[in-house]
């Protein structure tokens, strides 16, 4: 049985997120390989963006087996609704491989959203299709 997302934001922030990802792509020392807008089952009012960045965290793997998640409130550059937050989940290719293979909590949540169809690929580096294959599990 397919479970419909409870997320009330998805997919209306897509255009806004494209602007943010374009900004992130200008950070040359951590190139964006994949940016994915997705809707997990938690925090239904919030916006979730997952990015795989080459060199993020010096390409290290988190010893606690957790994807790095940072939450941003409303700013002039990226205003959000009252009570809404932007969740940015960041990883690097080596960590992504381990996270999705081992089914870390954050990775499972992303895979679950993909399985439900509650996602948009905002950016995929043409040279990194394997990253998207890894994330979606195919």
């Amino acid at each position, binding site marked *: 049985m397919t479970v419909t997302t409870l997320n009330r934001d998805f997919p209306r922030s897509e255009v806004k997120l494209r602007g*943010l990802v374009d*900004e*992130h792509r200008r*950070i*040359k*020392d*951590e190139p964006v390989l994949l940016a994915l807008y997705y809707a997990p089952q938690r925090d239904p009012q919030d916006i979730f963006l997952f*990015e795989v*960045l080459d060199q*993020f*965290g*010096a390409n*290290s793997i988190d010893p*606690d087996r*957790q994807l*790095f*998640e*940072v*939450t*941003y*409130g409303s*700013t*002039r*550059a*990226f205003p959000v609704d009252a009570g809404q*937050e*932007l969740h*940015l989940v*960041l990883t690097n290719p080596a960590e992504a491989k381990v996270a999705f293979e081992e089914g870390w909590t954050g990775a499972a949540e992303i895979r679950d959203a993909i399985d439900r169809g509650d996602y948009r690929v905002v950016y995929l580096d043409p040279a990194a299709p394997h990253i998207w294959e890894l994330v979606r599990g195919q």
Partner: protein
Amino acid sequence: MANDLAWTWLRQAGADFAAADRCQDPRDLTMACHSIAKHQQTVEKSVKAIVAALSERGIIRVATGFRHTVERLVSALVHLPHSPGNKDLQGRIHGLLNEHHRAEIDALCLLAPKRPDPGQLARRNTEYPYQNADGSWRAPADDGSFREAEVDRFRRLAYRIHGGSCRIVSAASR
């Protein structure tokens, strides 16, 4: 007091910087490892001060507290949405954590001790014994482990990051 935690991080970072200077002695390079280690601590605590200040203002929240490495926290700050050219708080952060400073922070963090990967040699660091290319062991305090130029290089970085963090936390307190 506004940003009490952020200022506390900065006080400790300032004390680390002072300790690094006390360790620096061009005539005695056995102390260079201690000086560089303290500069690394200065940078790390300064970055954590910015995160604490932004947390207090509700701009940023890192879900799992202070366990993250400084490189990851820097990345979180750099990915903060901002308007290019705008001198607001986020613009100042992007200015301080520019590409050059980020590369220097990465280089400094590479000198923190880290467990070697299986089959790899123990890498040069400021605290634990490490291995030369031939597998022999060396202490960070041994003559030749670190050069005076490296101490000066990371002192410049720590000075700039600490000073910049003080200005950002001050701006965030207004």
